[in-house]
């Protein structure tokens, strides 16, 4: 992606050569102050000694990472075993975020396709409609979701009234509720990139495929999907990554019963534990994991582009 941007910009390099440093300054400042500095601070904090009741002592320590990977029993003096607790929490987060991403894709792809195939002047209206609920604060939307799903809520009332079920479905405080919440929180991040990709797609190709006796399913699978794949991947990343670190949905819809990474980290700063280095270490491990996942995605995409082109 970076290489593409650089080569695309080469034609204009000369025009702005003089002012280049100055024009790039805002980008660099933003990058350093808003992205690099906080991450570096987190990295440093994760290697410091924890202070009782929050805060850090400026002494090097590996205790945070040790706590993450080794189980030393309730009192901290058993011989170390592999600690599965936090790995399980990470695994749960990946699973929940993955399910939410899949759900977003299944609903988001047809939605994006629908919008992209409307008359050109109507498309902005549909995009606009998709974004309207997202003008409301995430917290409010998550709480509202809980009200809709609860045992005595409108969804269960409706299902009981039409006779589909006899007793209310228990959705709130389950993993499924968390997935629904994450799906709803991040759906536009799936719809918009796919929409952008499908809109650029040349529908003549589908027609050509049909002329050559490809079924609709084959056309979708072999012609449309490969063409809009970058949009789909971007959408999946944009939903998956924030879902992994989210803590509102697990707290409010999942009943805060099972930590996800986000709530585990939150607890280190806001809860009784007050273990800032451990919170920072867990954040660093999360960041590393996301980075690895993104790199795998990018690799595969590059490979696919090479073999495709």
């Amino acid at each position, binding site marked *: 992606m970076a290489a593409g941007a650089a080569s695309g910009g080469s034609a204009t390099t000369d025009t702005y050569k003089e002012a280049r440093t100055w024009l790039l*300054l805002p980008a660099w*400042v933003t990058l350093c102050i808003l992205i690099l500095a906080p991450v570096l601070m987190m990295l440093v904090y994760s290697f410091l000694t924890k202070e*009782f*009741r*929050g*805060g850090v002592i400026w002494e090097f320590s590996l205790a945070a990472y040790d706590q993450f990977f080794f189980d030393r029993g*309730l*009192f*901290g003096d058993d011989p170390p075993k592999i600690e599965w*607790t936090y790995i*399980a*929490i990470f695994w749960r987060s990946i699973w929940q975020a993955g399910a939410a991403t899949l759900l977003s894709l299944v609903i988001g792809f047809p939605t994006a396709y629908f919008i992209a195939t409307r008359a050109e002047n109507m498309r902005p209206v549909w995009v606009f409609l998709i974004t309207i609920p997202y003008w409301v604060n995430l917290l409010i939307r998550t709480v509202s979701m809980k009200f809709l799903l*609860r*045992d*005595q809520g409108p969804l269960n009332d409706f299902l009981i009234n039409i006779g589909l079920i006899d007793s209310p479905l228990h959705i*709130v*405080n389950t993993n499924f509720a968390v997935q629904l919440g994450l799906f709803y929180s991040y759906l536009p991040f799936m719809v918009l990139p796919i929409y952008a990709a499908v809109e650029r797609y040349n529908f003549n190709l589908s027609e050509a495929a049909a002329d050559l006796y490809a079924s609709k399913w084959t056309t979708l699978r072999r012609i449309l999907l490969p063409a809009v794949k970058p949009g789909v991947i971007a959408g999946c990343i944009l939903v998956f990554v924030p879902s992994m670190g989210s803590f509102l949905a697990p*707290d*409010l819809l999942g*009943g*805060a*019963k*099972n*930590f996800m990474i986000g709530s585990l980290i939150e*607890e280190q*700063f*806001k*809860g*009784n*534990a*007050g*273990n800032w280095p451990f919170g920072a270490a867990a954040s660093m491990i999360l960041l590393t994991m996301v980075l690895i996942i993104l790199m795998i995605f990018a690799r595969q995409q590059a490979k696919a582009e090479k073999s495709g082109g």
Partner: protein
Amino acid sequence: MKSFMKNSAAAMALIIGANAAAAEGNLVLYHWFEYIPQDLIEKFTAETGINVTMDTFDSNEAMLASLKAGGIGTYDVSVPGDYMVSIMAGEGMLDTIADGELKNKGNIASEWADPSFDPGRKHSIPYQWGSTSFAVNRDVYSGDIQTTDILFNPPAELQGRINMLDSQGEVMAMAALHVGIPQCSNDREQLKALNAMLIEAKAHWASFNSDTAKEVLVSGDAAVGQIYDGFSAKAREEGANVEYAYPTQGYIAWMDNVVLLKDAPNRDSALKFMDFLLEPENIAAVTNYARYNAGVNGVEEFLDPELATQPEKNPHDKVGPGVFIEVCSQEVQAVYDQIWTNVKK
């Protein structure tokens, strides 16, 4: 780059300076959610001309964390619970109120004038006191509720329908009462028993939530909720058929206090606000709103007469002791944190 830094530093200083100038006649309050009537804040502003800005928190620990992470110097007063007052004083986060600075200090009721968590009331004044135990929906369960078994070893009707406060202190103190061990015990067998009991009990719990502790009872989402007495009274007044329990094993007693924070940007306003809350009429308005108890003399004539007969304030005669949450040593706290992670993992 260097000149940019200089310029932005100058701009920053200007902004900060401007704020400080405008801050005369302001008060920045860091308070629990749903704990002070808006009318009372307006009354304070009308009487003194001081504008009040309020941020809220939902647990003592969350407040401590946010003050530690840079909130000191932003807020003037906060409202920590009893044990948190001693923690904050120990951390040097509280300013000292000199003798004679509060003209209404004499109004503090004698039993709250010299509490163990703030001897001589050097940093704090009473706000409200009450109890924490749990409320049970009587439409769902009609048996005996005066036992901590309701939370930790519930009958079949209540299993899976229990909301706990999302607060380690309150859950652990209640659990210690249930197991019958002292709070902050460092006895390994006792701690193991506490851990095992909580992990087993968790299977019966629906959720952990503090700020919707009342709503889940009113809506019927939970049939049992660990809750503060005044919140339980409000749930009942909002139509839930709930009864507040005073378990024979004991319950949690607490007192919230208004403290003067270190480096308060509006120290004078803060003292005026504390004096204001020591006027019986004003603190009685809080009590009428929050349904707890004031720690100030002379409030009786201003109180809602219903409060005196409120069932949540009148324990039965077999009630266990009311215990304040204790501050554990660092070693025991580390084990408590481990247990809490085991419960919530």
